[in-house]
């Protein structure tokens, strides 16, 4: 079985295509500088910024967006890693070096976040790296304090985003206990941190590859997979399965109100995977045909449960009662030190919902964008740390943060 271990597969992969990792940050070159005025506080505090971005990224695709994405992909494949990072350091350094007073970590974050292929946590860590770069601190302690402030303001800016919080925490954790601190020279330590942060995008991509590899054992020929929402990891898993010539079909829920399922079904149709679209309420109806449920996660919490797009919980409940396995694909940087006890235990992430018809003002609308699925309804988690049972998540988190 050793040849099926992740590292071995990965090794082989790397031999095959060394230049594969895309370099999404190269996009930044073309992205317009954000205006400073509205950036310091969240323009619409009652609407979850995280889900807004997600909606913008994953909702059914407009033509111009497609064109943009296509362009991005071509840039990515042509560009290689080193030239991308060289090119990027210059503009950010120039922009912030001029006047440090107006540098804002939130702007930085937002500009990173605009890129559709970039995970939220990656954007957060990139933004923190920019803070290090812009900082004029001369000691590690100063730098740490500055970073702490920046990450706090980031977290406060969008409290609804779990991966933003987790990303910030993770990076802060790294800064406080990195071996870089052992370097005598402050500058080399600082450089080290920046380097780390910059490679994080790559890591996030690789994590997705590992998860895709690991989950191949679970997708067997002839199986039917129910998918909810649009998740880059899930797409990667299914894509890899299709590339491995597995015969399977996918049921996509519609994913109201963002209609993220439509987008996923588009992507899968491009890969020639048989797809069937379901309305969200047809899950129980189709469940007896389904062999497994595969979902992504916005965040994996300490209990081993997940926080994900609205509707995941009820799908998990239905599949639990019909004894179907529920698999979650999530990168380990989504592990968060949160412990919701029930659905209302987290701050709600609100979003606008378009019903197509005017709703009378007396009628209340449930606007929450996500729900919490407790661990007892999940079968396994596919992460870049391996295939875990839900209870191991807490083990990893304890080792990570304590």
């Amino acid at each position, binding site marked *: 079985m050793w040849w099926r*271990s*992740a*590292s*071995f597969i*990965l*090794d082989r992969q*790397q031999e095959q295509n060394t230049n594969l990792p895309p370099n999404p940050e190269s996009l930044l070159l073309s992205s317009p500088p954000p205006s400073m005025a509205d950036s310091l506080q969240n323009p619409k505090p009652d609407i979850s910024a995280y889900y807004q971005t997600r909606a913008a990224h994953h909702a059914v695709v407009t033509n111009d967006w497609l064109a943009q994405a296509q362009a991005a992909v071509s840039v990515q494949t042509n560009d290689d890693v080193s030239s991308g990072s060289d090119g990027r350091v210059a503009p950010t350094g120039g922009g912030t070096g001029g006047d440090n007073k107006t540098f804002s970590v939130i702007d930085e974050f937002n500009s990173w976040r605009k890129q559709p292929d970039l995970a939220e946590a990656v954007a957060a860590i990139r933004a923190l790296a920019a803070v290090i770069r812009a900082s004029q601190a001369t000691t590690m302690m100063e730098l740490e304090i500055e970073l702490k402030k920046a990450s706090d303001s980031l977290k406060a800016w969008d409290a609804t985003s779990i991966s933003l919080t987790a990303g910030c925490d*993770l990076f802060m*954790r*790294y800064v406080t*206990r*990195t*071996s870089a601190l*052992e370097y005598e020279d402050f500058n080399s330590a600082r450089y080290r941190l920046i380097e*780390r942060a910059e*490679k*994080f995008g*790559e*890591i996030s991509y*690789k*994590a997705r590859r*590992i998860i895709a590899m*690991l989950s191949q054992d679970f997708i067997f020929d002839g199986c039917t997979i129910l998918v909810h929402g649009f998740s880059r990891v899930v797409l990667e898993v299914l894509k890899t399965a299709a590339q491995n010539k597995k015969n399977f079909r996918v049921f996509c829920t519609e994913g109201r109100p963002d209609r993220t399922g439509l987008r996923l079904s588009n992507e899968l149709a491009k890969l020639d995977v048989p797809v069937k679209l379901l309305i969200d309420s047809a899950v129980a109806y189709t469940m007896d045909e389904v062999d497994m449920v595969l979902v992504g996660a916005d965040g994996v919490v*300490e*209990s*081993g449960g997940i926080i994900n797009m609205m509707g995941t919980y009820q799908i998990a409940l239905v599949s639990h009662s019909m004894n179907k396995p529920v698999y979650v694909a999530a*990168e*380990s*940087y989504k*592990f968060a*030190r949160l*412990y919701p*006890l*029930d659905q209302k*235990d987290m701050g709600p992430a609100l979003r606008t919902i378009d019903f197509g018809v005017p709703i009378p003002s007396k009628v209340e609308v449930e606007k929450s964008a996500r729900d919490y699925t407790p*661990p007892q309804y999940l079968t396994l988690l596919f*992460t*870049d*740390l*391996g*295939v*875990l049972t839900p*209870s*191991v998540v*807490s*083990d*990893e988190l*304890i*080792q*990570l*943060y*304590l």
Partner: protein
Amino acid sequence: MDPRRTARTVSDPKVRQVGFFTPAPPERSISDPPRFQDPIQPPSPSPTQVNDQSPSGNSLSPVMIPPAHHHSDNFLRTALQATSPPKAFSYSAKTVTIPPENEDVASSFSPGRKVVSAKSPSSFPGVKASSVPASELTTVSVVNLPPGISEKAGGASVEVQNDRPVSAKTLKEKTSKAERRALQEAQRAAKAAAKAEGTKASSAASKVVTSANTKPSKATKPSSQKNDGSQVAASEKKGGDRAPEKDRKKDAPHPRMQYDDKSRVEKAKKRAVVKQTEARNRVELFRHLPQYEHGTQLPDLETKFFELDPMHPAVYKVGLQYLSGDIRGGNARCIAMFQAFKEAIKDYSTPPEKTLIRDLTARISSYVSFLIECRPLSISMGNAIKFLKNRIAKLPLALSESEAKSTLMLDIDRFINEKIILSEKVIVKHAVTKIRDGDVLLTYGASSVVEMILLHAHELGKHFRVVVVDSRPKLEGQLLLRRLVRKGLSCTYTHVNAVSCIMQDVTRVFLGASSVLSNGTVYSRVGTACVAMVAHAFRVPVLVCCEAYKFHERVQLDSICFNELGNPDAISKVQGREEINYLDGLVNQENLQLLNLIYDATPSDYVSMVITDYGMIPPTSVPVIVREYRRDHLWS
């Protein structure tokens, strides 16, 4: 000690375990160890990297998250258990038997027979039965077998010696068979007993076997206190190079005194300071627990106050307070005990021709056994005593007496401050985040941490209601209720009988715990399990608040095998209500057994979350805390 732990300590952030970091540039890898357990790392490490990695965890592929335990680990452990002193029959001073509870483990790796060289202790963990050269016959002592297999070995030591050169392989084949044969032989021996079938060896064997069958627990229990002392003393004798083994020995579960074992109980009685009279009608299922008449010893003990030379007055006082129930609650008992020990250490002076480390350990052990006689130790006190003894054992020999004493007293203070007081504060900080406006919180009994949580949440201006659930006979909830009402919280008070009615209004259940065991079982005041189960049925989250020093690596499945029995009179009579006297005159009836349990075990299924000083964790992660932190913080 534990490779997994040590590998992680220095220079290397635990962060590396999450797929966050890229491989370090190779030229750096020599100066600093691989700083990440990055699954993405191309598996072509330089030789130096390989050396840096810990044997168990880091070199594994990321898929295998829980590093497989080394077989040798197991082996070491069994070897150590084999050498631990407790025993039923000894043929010579050096003879050691394998406790039967380890029978399966022991037999799985070195069947039937274990031979350990007692005279060359430094080499013993690696010694296998077959590896001892026959020429060392004189120095080699025979490790006895579990009773099942012992008929042969018990027969004559000559026979054993003849056997020894047999290769390990043949021995292995024998073992499982040997056990089965032992049983058969036992039956046969019983039948043939009348025939008085002859040889000395076989009659001895049958005696061993039958006694083992009738009282299976007999061989397992050494006297608890005595063993404590001897074990520590024994482990000290050996040099500093054996420190890890000593630690492992401490890992081995400590056999408890079983009170249905008559001979042990007799022995223990002889030593006892407190003369407890046994209850007349002992509850059948709980015979293994001490069941005494309550309320008789106190006056007797008080008169003895001035006669007891070895007992320090502070310890004596605390013991009496335990006995009378003046001090109760895990934290209070633990703090009181430590304060008394501190007094005792302060007044301690090493007797001539003795060393402080050994004498003080023995002294503490005798105090502990006195306290046990007054009231069985709680698990948290057990942990605390382990800590103290460990500190004593690790005192540098060069320290002068006064320095050693002040070090110990500082350690005690530090334990009380960090492990109890500070961790309560941290727990409060965590727990308060789970209280929202409009909540109805239910608590059972009186837990000091839960009280602090409620009061602090109230100070923060949160609006919530409290339901205090209480039960006979202790009615501890009333004390809590009194303090809460004084502070202006709005409270409801009810008895546990009504918990199913009140539960539908409740949004959170906060419970204290006497201990949390490593399978997530919560060991707490009797009635807690009932409350937790009702809450679970109503889908109300159950939050257990427990300091990490109360965690224990034991696994317990029910509340029978380890528990404490209270005064049966407390449940048969209602104080102050003379008209309720239905049981008058019945208490001494043969066919009436009154059972007043003090604790019960709540299965982890009913617990949503454990709040501890390390944060909020699911009950499944208790062993992680025990594994990762106990060793560092408590034992070091």
